[in-house]
């Protein structure tokens, strides 16, 4: 028993807790002449909060992540619901088809989105062919909209799958009971199916928000200058700027937001009547 505790907590401490703690502590250090000074100060946080461009980047990124989560919640719910209404054989196929894109390299997917969104890209060709636009739209790439679209596409499976799982867990007896009691289709949906499947949507929205707010790859590859997000700001501190303590301090703010979102999601996604 004791040995087991030691191994598990030892691993957790060595590779999860102490690294997280050292990152938290680092946020209070500072850099002089490219080397870290190990003396605690609030200078990083004062700078972040007083620097306009850091603050705007922070809120711009959170807003973008929120928008992506909202769009994906709607698209994801509709898709999960559609899958759920199919006959069983179809369902399995559609779920697997949903998981397959997850197997393709994240980097490549983002890169391919350039080919889809670019001036000469697939989307423009389609729009031109359909006569929706007269000339290629260049506003689709290297801006924040491109980041939104790209993140939305790559994160969609993380929304559809949890919603579908919670839809599938609704017992048939519950649906039959609703029908027996004379509920119409819309009523059944609004008062039975939706409340029972919302926890899945909350989990999906949480995943989407946390992943979108911290992502730096999609913004870097399709975002251009306008798509300079908080994740890129953090990552740049560990590259050229070489200010690890500032990078850590910036990440602490991101972590606080992420933990708050996870906490809220746990609360909302696990309502008392389901426990």
């Amino acid at each position, binding site marked *: 028993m004791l040995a087991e505790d030691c191994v*598990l*907590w030892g*691993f*957790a401490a060595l590779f999860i*807790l*102490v*690294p*997280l703690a*050292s*990152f938290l502590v680092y946020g209070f250090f500072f850099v002089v002449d490219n080397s870290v000074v190990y003396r605690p100060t609030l200078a990083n946080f004062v700078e972040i909060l007083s620097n306009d461009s850091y603050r705007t980047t922070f809120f711009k990124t959170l807003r973008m992540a929120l928008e992506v989560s909202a769009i994906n919640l709607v*698209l*994801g719910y*509709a*898709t999960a619901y*559609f*899958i759920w*209404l199919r006959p069983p054989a179809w369902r399995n196929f559609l779920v*697997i088809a*949903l998981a*397959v*894109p*997850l*197997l*393709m*390299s*994240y*980097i*490549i*997917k983002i*890169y*391919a989105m350039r*080919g*889809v969104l*670019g001036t*000469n890209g697939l989307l423009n060709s389609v729009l031109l062919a359909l006569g929706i636009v007269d000339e290629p739209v260049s506003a689709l790439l290297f801006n924040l909209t491109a980041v939104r679209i790209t993140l939305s*596409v790559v994160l*969609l499976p993380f929304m*559809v*799958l*949890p919603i579908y*799982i919670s839809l599938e867990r609704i017992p048939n007896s519950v649906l039959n009971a609703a029908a027996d009691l004379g509920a119409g*289709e*819309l009523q059944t949906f609004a008062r039975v199916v939706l409340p029972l499947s919302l*926890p899945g949507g909350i*989990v999906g929205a949480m995943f989407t928000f*946390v992943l979108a707010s*911290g992502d730096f*790859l999609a913004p870097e590859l399709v975002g251009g200058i306008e798509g300079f997000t908080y*994740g890129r700001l*953090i*990552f740049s501190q*560990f590259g050229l700027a070489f200010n*690890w303590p500032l990078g*850590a301090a910036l*990440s602490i703010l*991101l*972590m606080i937001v*992420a*933990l708050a979102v*996870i906490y809220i999601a746990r609360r909302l996604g696990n309502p008392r009547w389901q426990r």
Partner: protein
Amino acid sequence: MKRLRLLDVSLASVSFLVYLALYLPILLVFVLSFFSMRRGRVRWDTFSFEWYARLFSNESLGEALLNSIIVGVTAIIAATVIATLAALHVNARPSSRSARMLEYVIFLPFLLPPIITGLSLLIYFREIGVSRGLATIIVGHAVFVLAIIYRIILTRLNALSRSLVEAAQDLGASRLQTFRFIILPNLRMPLLTAGILAFALSFDETMITLFLSGTDGTLPVRLYAMMRVGFTPEINALITLILGFSIVLTVVFAFAWRRSGGTDNNRITRI
């Protein structure tokens, strides 16, 4: 049941668009692995296996692929051992505070943005004087996939009847024997599911890895570096091959899973 037609049609069209959006990038990569492109247009008269042929002479990609496999396999073996221990531990004492805490800690690296897991390990390794390399990447991946393996195994353990374990112990089996002959046979499918899922996650992990890799990068890190200096079309060939391989693996696995009659898969919604 009578359904509202309009609702049906709009549901179907939204779903269609979602699937289309998911598959467009894949389709593009697939097409470009056979054809070349000029000024943003695919030239349909240029079908060839040239990019596939060139792929095999690209040593840096091969090396990166090998690194990815080494990292994935090692990280998953390590994470599976820890995750199984943790799941047994938590399953045996569901109301213990320490066990609940342990569960939270295990979930942290999976739930926090990858950028935070990556940079905290980077800072940690630097402070204890470990230089970046495959070993640091392996730790990062093991910590990252731990939660998903743990969750899948715990779900199965919780579904197992307590009386099985009690019966074994009444008959005089030691803890190790109980695990070996009673619990382990029941974990075969969940372990396989978890292993494959975790490998897929590890194989594609980019953000944590970027922080932890020195000169030896995994495939995504290599691709990231290549993308900044210019992308060669043999990448499309490589990705098509990997994707084809993964699809075959998924289909084979899905059939195996269905035949084994498993229904309680990873309950992501219960995290």
